[in-house]
C-alpha cells in the first residue's frame, strides 16, 4: 500500500462507507458495530505494540481497563469533558511507562514481558473486584467492585448536544481513523522506523547506536494510550465499566484479533477484530455450537495454515489474479513483501 493515490482513495472509501452505514441498518446493528469499532481501536493498539514494535503483551486489556476506569472516575468527578478523555489516555500511558521502565531497562526477556503484563492485568482484575463497598471511592466515584461503575456520564458534542447512537458510531469511526493515521505517521518517522527495526533485530539496532529500551518504552506507552482511548469509548458506549474488561478473556481476544489479522500489519487486526466480533455475535444467536469453540478453531486454522494472517493473504490476491491473467508462472509473482505488508 505504498501508492498514495490508492491510500487516499481507500481512506475516503472507508469514511464514506462508515458514514453511510447508519442510514441502511437498524439502530441495534449500529450499536453493535460501534463496539466493534471501539474494539478495533484496541486491536490496532496491540497491532502497533506487538506487530510493529515486537513487544509481546499478553495482558493488553490492562491499559484498556485503566482507560475505561480513568474516564469513568474522572467523568463522575469532573464531568464528561476533555479532562476525562485526556486522563483516560494519560493514566494507562503513565502506567505503561512505569511498568515498561522496569521491564525494558531491566532487560527482561520477551517471554517474561508477556507474562508480566498478563500478571498485571489479572492483578488489576482482582484488585478492582475487591473494591465493593462504599469505602472504596475516588473522589465522589465509587469503584463498585464486581458491579463496576454504573451510569457513567457520557460525552457530548462541543455544542453541548447529546451524542446519540449514530453520533457515537461516527465518533468511534473518526477516532479509529485518527488512531490509524497517527500510527502510520509515527511509523514513517525516524522513531517509528527504529520501532520496526527493533522488532526485526534488537541486537543490530543496539549495535547501530539505537537505545532499544527507550524506544520500546515509547512504543509501549503510545500503545497504552491508544488502548486507554478505546477504554474511554467503551465506557461511553455502555455508560458502564466493570472489572471483566481486565480479564483473561478480554486479553486473549485482542491477541486473537492481531494473530488472525496479521502481525506486522495495521489494517489486518482492525478487519479481523470487526469480523470476529460480528461472527461472535451471529454465533451467539444460535444454540448449536459454542462460540469459544469456534473462535478456538479459527485461531488454530490461522496459526497453522495462514501464519502471516488475513491482511497479507488478501494483499496477495491481486498479484495472483494479475499473474493468472498474464499467464506468468507462480514463481515470478511478487506476493507482497513483508516490508510492504508492514506498511499496510
Amino acid at each position: 500500500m505504498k501508492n498514495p493515490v490508492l491510500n487516499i482513495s481507500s481512506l475516503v472509501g472507508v469514511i464514506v462507507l462508515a458514514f453511510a452505514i447508519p442510514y441502511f441498518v437498524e439502530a441495534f446493528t449500529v450499536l453493535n458495530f460501534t463496539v466493534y469499532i471501539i474494539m478495533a481501536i484496541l486491536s490496532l493498539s496491540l497491532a502497533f505494540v506487538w506487530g510493529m514494535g515486537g513487544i509481546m503483551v499478553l495482558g493488553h486489556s490492562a491499559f484498556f481497563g485503566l482507560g475505561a476506569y480513568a474516564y469513568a472516575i474522572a467523568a463522575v468527578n469532573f464531568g464528561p469533558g476533555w479532562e476525562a478523555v485526556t486522563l483516560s489516555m494519560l493514566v494507562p500511558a503513565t502506567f505503561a511507562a512505569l511498568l515498561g521502565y522496569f521491564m525494558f531497562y531491566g532487560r527482561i526477556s520477551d517471554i517474561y514481558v508477556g507474562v508480566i503484563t498478563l500478571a498485571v492485568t489479572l492483578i488489576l482484575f482482582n484488585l478492582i473486584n475487591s473494591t465493593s463497598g462504599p469505602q472504596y471511592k475516588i473522589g465522589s466515584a465509587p469503584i463498585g467492585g464486581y458491579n463496576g461503575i454504573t451510569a457513567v456520564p457520557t460525552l457530548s458534542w462541543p455544542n453541548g448536544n447529546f451524542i446519540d447512537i449514530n453520533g457515537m458510531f461516527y465518533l468511534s469511526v473518526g477516532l479509529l481513523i485518527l488512531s490509524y493515521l497517527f500510527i502510520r505517521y509515527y511509523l514513517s518517522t525516524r522513531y517509528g522506523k527504529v520501532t520496526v527495526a527493533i522488532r526485526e533485530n534488537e541486537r543490530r539496532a543496539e549495535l547501530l547506536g539505537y537505545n532499544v529500551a527507550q524506544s520500546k518504552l515509547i512504543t509501549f506507552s503510545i500503545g497504552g494510550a491508544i488502548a486507554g482511548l478505546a477504554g474511554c469509548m467503551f465506557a461511553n458506549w455502555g455508560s458502564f465499566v466493570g472489572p471483566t474488561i481486565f480479564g483473561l478473556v478480554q486479553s486473549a481476544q485482542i491477541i486473537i484479533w492481531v494473530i488472525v489479522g496479521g502481525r506486522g500489519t495495521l489494517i489486518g487486526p482492525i478487519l479481523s477484530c470487526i469480523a470476529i466480533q460480528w461472527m461472535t455475535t451471529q454465533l451467539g444467536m444460535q444454540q448449536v455450537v459454542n462460540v469459544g469453540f469456534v473462535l478456538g478453531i479459527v485461531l488454530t486454522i490461522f496459526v497453522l495454515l495462514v501464519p502471516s494472517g488475513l491482511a497479507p493473504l488478501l494483499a496477495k490476491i491481486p498479484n495472483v489474479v494479475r499473474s493468472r491473467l498474464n499467464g506468468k508462472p507462480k514463481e515470478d509473482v511478487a506476493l507482497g513483501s513483508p516490508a510492504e505488508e508492514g506498511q499496510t
Partner: protein
Amino acid sequence: MSDNIILQTKGLGISFGGLHAVRDVDFVLRGGELRCLIGPNGAGKTTFFRLLSGQHTPTRGEIIYKGKPLGNLQPYQIARLGIGVKTQVPSLFEGLSVFENLELAANQTFSGLEAVSIVDETLERISLQDQRHTICQELAHGQRQWVELGQILASKPDVALLDEPAAGMTHDESLKTIEIIKEITAKSSVVVVEHDMDFIKLIGERVTVFDRGEVIADGTFKEIASNPQVREAYLGRKEAAVA
C-alpha cells in the same frame, strides 16, 4: 591521544566461570589503521570484539577509546561514540529492505537528504543498487554480508570491527569484500577478524594473532607466518594453504 592511538586495551580480560576467554590483552589501534586478527577457533577473537563493543563487560583491564576509558557503557552508547560492528553471523533487519537497512545505519549519524544520498552512494559501493527494495532475508549469503558492511560504510564510524566479513564467500566475492573493507578504511580505523589466511594475505596489513585468549604474536603477514609459536597454534594446520 599519543601516537594517534584511537583504541587501546590494557590488560583486558573476561572469564566465564573458570574459563578465561580473553586474558590480559594489550592492544593498540591507530587512526586510519587496518589490522587483522587471526587465531584458531575458540582463541577469543569474537569475545574480544564483544568486549570492545560493550556486548560483554570485562572482568579485568580497561578499554580506552580516543584517550578516555569506556567504562561500562551500553553497546548503543559505544556505537554512538563511533565504534561500528559487523558481527560474525550476518545480523540484519531481516524483514526490511536493503535500503531500509542502510537508511537505519545512516540515520544514526546523518539526517534527511544527506542520509538518503549516503545510502545511495553505499548501495553503489556494495553493488546492490538493483536490490535496494529487496528484503534482506531474500538475499544470498554474500550479499547479506555486504549489506552489513554497507551499514558500516553508511554510518561512517571512527572504528569498524569486522568479524569474519568474508566467511562463506566465493573467491570473487572475497575480492569485492576486500574492496569494500579498503573503502571503510578510507574513513575509519578497521579491525578484521578472519579465518581465511588467503584473505588475510590479500589484505596485506599488520596481523595480530590470538590463541587461548591471549595475543601471541603481532607483525606483518610474513613475520607471523614464520613465527614458530603461531605455526604451532594456528598456521600448523593451515600451512599448506598459506604456502
